[in-house]
């Protein structure tokens, strides 16, 4: 049998999940978790070099999803390293028992499987199943601490996520109805590559309605306002590695689903333009989250709202469309994933060192924990979009391309960015500087994953390799 990276990307997490579910020793299982995500990442990166398999009825590898797979498997790998040290501390302070830990590791791999499946799926039904699976695994992980807050967060996430996923299924059925008369009944009418080929002949009215359901459904999972209510709770109450994976990866996967259907709609000349809808939801999320950032008292919630803000910017960029805005959107997505998961690593270390997530009880980090404090400062500088870091570049691209196309919208966009910027620095000032408050005990966990993420974000702001630029330009042109 020839080497088939697609199958490996799916098989490794699945086998690892089964193994981790039965392996009792937590040190060994944390190592296995790291090894499995590393192997998955290697398989994912090998997609760039080996010859791509032809799109099948279920799986597909194309230029668009390779970017997502590389990002997902990379962040999954670094997060698993962070998770190994983080979890050891949670065991020490008895927040988790070994049984729960076994469950946690198995769920982590199952989530990786679900996300990779959603990204690789060429069948819109299969994609839906994968995203549903990802939702269920994360619900279980968010509730893992079993405190009042964690259960409430998990319940809220479960109900809102299920409603979103139900709407998305209705949209999927409508797409099938639209394609049936053209492509023919049966499996073919759900295969994405076949759908795109024939989309021009679909009934535009049906396709429009389908897209609205899909945008609302998957948009709930992206965390777009007004469907974002689950997101801050789920981020704040679950284990921090899960917050990092949720913000850095799962939101992207849901956005990827929206993008697939956007391409489908763009292939039909009579269907409505998906852009304005995405622009509206994106801007609403950005403005809403920007103002909400001011009232946060919990550091994980603060950055959860910042995720809503950034997903808004990315959705906005893809909604504006065109080569430049799409390029900016893609770059922003990658940079946000890296920076935000890096910030959550930092926040995890902070919460463990200080024993609290309340902003009021965390003061003077740069004095008490210089290495951690300055890393957080760097992370917030990155996420707020200051030059010369990567996010500045992508935001700059989005803003300039919007000014060229829709100057009025660009003003709103800039206002939103500035509002969020102000809030982040206000809080950063409280957390990072001044007299230290609370415990000054050193952090035992490894800072390496956090530094790696911030280093990549910084490097990307200074220099983007030409091959990467060409690749992104190509993908941006695919997105239309």
């Amino acid at each position, binding site marked *: 049998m020839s080497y088939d990276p697609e199958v490996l990307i799916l098989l490794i997490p699945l086998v690892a999940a089964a193994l981790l579910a039965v392996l009792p020793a937590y040190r060994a299982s944390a190592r296995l978790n790291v090894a499995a995500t590393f192997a998955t990442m290697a398989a994912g990166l090998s997609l760039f070099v080996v010859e791509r398999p032809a799109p099948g009825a279920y799986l597909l590898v194309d230029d668009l999803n390779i970017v997502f797979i590389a990002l997902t498997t990379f962040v999954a790998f670094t997060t698993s390293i962070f998770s190994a040290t983080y979890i050891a501390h949670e065991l020490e302070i008895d927040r988790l028992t070994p049984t729960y830990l076994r469950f946690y590791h198995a769920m982590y791999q199952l989530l990786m499987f679900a996300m990779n499946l959603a990204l690789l799926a060429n*069948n819109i*039904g*299969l994609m*839906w*199943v994968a995203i*549903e699976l990802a939702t*269920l695994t994360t*619900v*279980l992980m968010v*509730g893992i601490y*079993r405190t*009042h*807050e964690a*259960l*409430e*967060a*998990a*319940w809220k996430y*479960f*109900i809102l996520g*299920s*409603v979103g996923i*139900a*709407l998305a*299924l*209705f949209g*999927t*059925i*409508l797409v*099938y*109805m639209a394609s*049936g*008369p053209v492509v023919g*009944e*049966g*499996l073919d*009418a*759900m295969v994405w590559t076949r759908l795109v080929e024939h989309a021009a002949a679909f*009934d535009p*009215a*049906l396709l*429009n*309605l389908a897209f609205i359901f899909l945008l609302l459904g998957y948009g709930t999972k992206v965390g777009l306002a007004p469907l974002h209510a689950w997101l801050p*709770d789920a981020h*704040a*109450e679950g284990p921090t590695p899960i917050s990092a994976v949720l913000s850095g990866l799962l939101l992207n996967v849901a956005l990827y689903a929206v993008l697939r259907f956007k391409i489908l709609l763009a292939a039909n000349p009579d269907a409505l333009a998906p852009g304005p809808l995405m622009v509206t939801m994106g801007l609403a999320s950005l403005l809403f989250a920007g103002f909400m950032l001011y*009232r*946060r*008292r*919990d550091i994980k*919630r603060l950055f959860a709202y910042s995720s809503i803000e950034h997903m808004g910017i990315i959705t906005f960029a893809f909604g504006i469309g065109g080569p430049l805005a799409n390029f900016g959107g893609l770059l922003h997505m990658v940079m946000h994933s890296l920076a935000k998961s890096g910030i959550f690593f930092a926040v995890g270390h902070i919460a463990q060192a200080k024993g609290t997530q*309340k902003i009021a009880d965390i003061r003077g980090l740069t004095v008490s924990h210089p290495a951690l404090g300055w890393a957080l400062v760097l992370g917030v500088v990155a996420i707020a979009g200051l030059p010369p870091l990567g996010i500045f570049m992508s935001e700059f691209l989005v803003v300039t391309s919007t000014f060229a196309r829709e100057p009025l919208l660009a003003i709103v966009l800039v206002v939103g960015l500035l509002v969020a910027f102000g809030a982040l620095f206000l809080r950063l000032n409280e957390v990072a500087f001044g007299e230290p408050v609370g415990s000054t005990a050193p952090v035992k966990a490894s800072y390496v994953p956090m530094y790696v993420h911030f280093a990549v974000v910084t490097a990307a702001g200074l220099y983007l390799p030409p091959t990467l630029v060409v690749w992104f330009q190509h993908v941006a042109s695919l997105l239309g």
Partner: protein
Amino acid sequence: MDGLDFDIAHLLAGGLVLMSFLLLYQDRMYALLNMFALHAVVLALSVAWQAYVQDAPHLYVTAAIALVFKAIIIPSALHRIVERLGIHRVIETVGGVGPTMLAGMALVALSMVVMLKVTAGADPLAREDLAFALSVVLLGLLMMATRRNAVSQVIGFMSLENGLVLAATGAKGMPLVVEISVAFSILIAFIVIGIFLFRIRERFDTVDVQVIDRFRGERR
């Protein structure tokens, strides 16, 4: 498809919408559970009829799942949970029955207007099925929004999924992949919910979502 086949399919799909309305105003837990079982029975009949008229034997599987799993196993399991948690009292609703029913009617009208207009070119049975299915989905959403109790929210969610199954079977020749996944997801969803209900019981001594809402992180 001749007249009678069409009429029966129509009747059953319409019956499901009616069942959703019945669910909407139940104010006792056991009555709500029984009504949900009836909802699932009507769904099973409707799916079985579709299997017969479309000559699609795999749909009988979906019908059987609806009948056994949703009409029998889930309601009886929920019945036991309700009993053990001691929450068979009157269900708290947000807003009265009257406004809720009016809102339900408005939603049905909305889905008729939207779906019938949009699917003008499609097969007449499929388009009406889809319009009914959207009504059931919207009524399920309405029920989830107007109930404070976790168990009745779950029932609202399951009635919503019944609407999705109706839509999926109405779409002729839709691959089995999706139907199985729907059934499967309900199974998983139920397990998850079961775990949650027990934990919620364990932690709060209540399954009233309003009480859970008090533990909001921001108000600490």
